């Protein structure tokens, strides 16, 4: 068969073109680039593989007594968010409806190490876990509620670098024992009267906990003779520690690759079951708080995954769970239901961004009258940093308006009035109402900045702080 000359011609031209293209392509791929290209890959920041500072911390090794005497005044605020962990105080006498321009009388003031730790009050004593920069030590100070003078202080040397201050947490007092969690995850239990050391624990070495960025903000919970901790490490999610001897009573295995957040453990009943709820980084879970199966994992979800969580989960009166966080996260409402077999199931009811509803960056909101109250985060759009009221699903009902912004400051409810503290130390009192913002009085009571530490109300005395000083106000009429 005679070959077709046209076919030979076409194949030849195609072959030459293919060869030329290959040569040009090869040249293009192998020639040096004439524009600089930076690969955006991990580990370009020069961070060493391991920078963990291994420190032999002798918890409770420092002690000093002072001239103060415990007060006979009534009223307690025994831990984070008060006795019921709802941030609602019970005033023991009527509170003043108005203040002098300078604010309520300041009864006493004490200088503190820089930070945001809040006080607890029990039996006329004020407890605050401070950081002493001179001694480089976490120090639990026990002060008189009368005059702020020192009764005793106990602590331990631990190396902490200033990172938005040092101190963070609120102690918890129960059954005559005061328990603290330090910024580096050290747990210390002392006799609440004498300050005698009972036991100590490093959650990092004991449970593999890893402290969050900016140190831990988790406040301890004393419940049914146990200290409930959330190491949220690779093996242990929650742990119950015997209050008296520090031995581990129960643990909840880690449900996932979760990490410790700045939130604290919430406790409450859902569908007739008492449970602990903790929101870690990458997941949240409910754990039985009942004697028969304490520590058993009841449900878990990985639907709530902000990179930073500071506010604690709220178990609302209707049994739903409300979680919120700053930094673009917004909020989420969850429904936990109990099936016929006793199994719990969790579902997301609503989720929204910070501009689309109620949220909080740093403080856990307050539930009152079926509504949520708190300060909107910086990324809430026009409502940023305003005090707001929302329904249980996070729909904002009203805000304090652009003239009343508060930053990241704390909120406390007592005697049908909200006490709201701004970053700059301006304290505002407003009627507790679901109908609108009704301010009653306002005064600048602190002169420092970053007044973020949670407040405490004992009797009619309000304890509040800025980054370096705590004051005691008399709110009585």
């Amino acid at each position, binding site marked *: 068969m005679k070959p077709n000359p046209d076919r030979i011609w076409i194949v030849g031209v195609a072959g030459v073109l293919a060869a030329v293209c290959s040569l040009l392509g090869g040249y293009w791929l192998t020639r040096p680039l004439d524009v600089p290209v930076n690969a*955006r890959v991990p580990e370009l920041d020069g961070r060493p593989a391991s920078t963990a500072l291994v420190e032999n911390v002798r918890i409770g090794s420092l002690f000093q007594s002072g001239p103060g005497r415990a007060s006979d005044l009534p009223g307690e605020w025994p831990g984070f968010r008060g006795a019921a962990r709802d941030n609602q105080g019970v005033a023991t006498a009527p509170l003043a409806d108005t203040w002098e321009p300078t604010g309520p009388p300041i009864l006493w003031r004490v200088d503190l190490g820089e930070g945001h730790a809040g006080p607890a009050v029990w039996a006329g004593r004020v407890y605050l876990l401070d950081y002493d920069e001179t001694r480089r030590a976490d120090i639990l100070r026990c002060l008189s509620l009368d005059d702020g003078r020192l009764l005793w202080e106990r602590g331990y040397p631990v190396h902490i670098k200033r990172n938005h201050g040092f101190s963070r947490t609120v102690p918890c007092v129960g059954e005559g024992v005061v328990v603290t969690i330090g910024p580096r995850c050290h747990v210390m239990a002392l006799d609440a009267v004498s300050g005698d050391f009972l036991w100590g624990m490093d959650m990092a070495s004991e449970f593999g906990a890893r402290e969050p960025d900016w140190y831990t903000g988790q406040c301890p919970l004393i419940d049914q003779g146990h200290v409930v901790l959330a190491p949220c490490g690779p093996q242990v999610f929650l742990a119950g520690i015997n209050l008296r001897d520090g031995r581990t009573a129960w643990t909840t295995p880690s449900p996932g690759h979760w990490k410790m957040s700045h939130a604290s453990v919430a406790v409450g009943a859902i569908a007739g079951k008492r449970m602990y709820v903790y929101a870690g980084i990458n997941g949240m879970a409910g754990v039985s708080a009942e004697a028969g199966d304490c520590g058993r994992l009841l449900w878990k979800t990985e639907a709530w995954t902000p990179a930073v969580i500071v506010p604690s989960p709220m178990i609302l009166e209707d049994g739903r769970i409300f979680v919120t966080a700053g930094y*673009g996260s917004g909020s989420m409402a969850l429904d936990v239901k109990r099936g016929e077999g006793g199994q719990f199931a969790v579902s997301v009811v609503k989720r929204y961004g910070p501009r689309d509803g109620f949220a909080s960056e740093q403080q856990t909101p307050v539930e009152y009258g079926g509504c949520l109250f708190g300060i909107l985060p910086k*990324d809430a759009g026009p409502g940023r940093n305003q005090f707001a009221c929302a329904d249980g699903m996070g729909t904002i009902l009203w805000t304090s308006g652009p003239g009343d912004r508060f930053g990241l400051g704390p909120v406390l409810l007592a005697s049908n009035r909200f006490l709201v503290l701004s970053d700059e130390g301006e304290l505002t009192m407003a009627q507790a109402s679901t109908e609108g913002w009704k301010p009653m009085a306002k005064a600048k009571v602190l002169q420092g900045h970053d007044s973020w530490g949670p407040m405490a109300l004992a009797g009619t005395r309000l304890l509040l702080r800025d980054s370096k000083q705590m004051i005691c106000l008399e709110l009585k009429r």
Partner: protein
Amino acid sequence: MKGESRRDFLKKAARWSVLALLGGVAFRMAGKPGAGRRSGMVWQIDPAKCIQCGRCETSCVRTPSAVKCVHSYDICGFCNLCGGYHQPGAKDTGTGAENQLCPTDAIRRRFVEEPYFQYDIVEDLCIGCAKCVKGCAAFGNGSLFLQVRHDRCWNCNECSIARVCPSGAISRVPSGRPYRLRGQG
């Protein structure tokens, strides 16, 4: 019809040439970088008013924009997790592209010591999009903010960004104090 004489034509041509030359010089003087500086005022952004709308990137007559992100180290927290550097949902704080907010790799993260990291702006890569500024404002204390860089700004008589700035954040400031920096009073 009588034509134009050669002498008249040359005279007219000379007049127009001189006028064109003067006009060109005037135009050049007005458009030259630094012209406004000689008048004592330059354009600048007030960080307190800036709402990070993104118009500084797209409305400047220069490409890329003469508006750049600047960093006030005085008020920076040097955090491991940085709202100006990391995506809001970043699960890792490393330098991988998937974690970064900046579209042009204009922020360099550098380990200082635990737990501190320094963030530096590479101005040649910065396009003034304000994504990092927005993240820093929402997450941190606003140590990242936008400024008109006067080595790049032509200082036009009417700033094309100021015309479209929705918050009125751009105004003229004395050339003796050409920047509005945070953390320095």
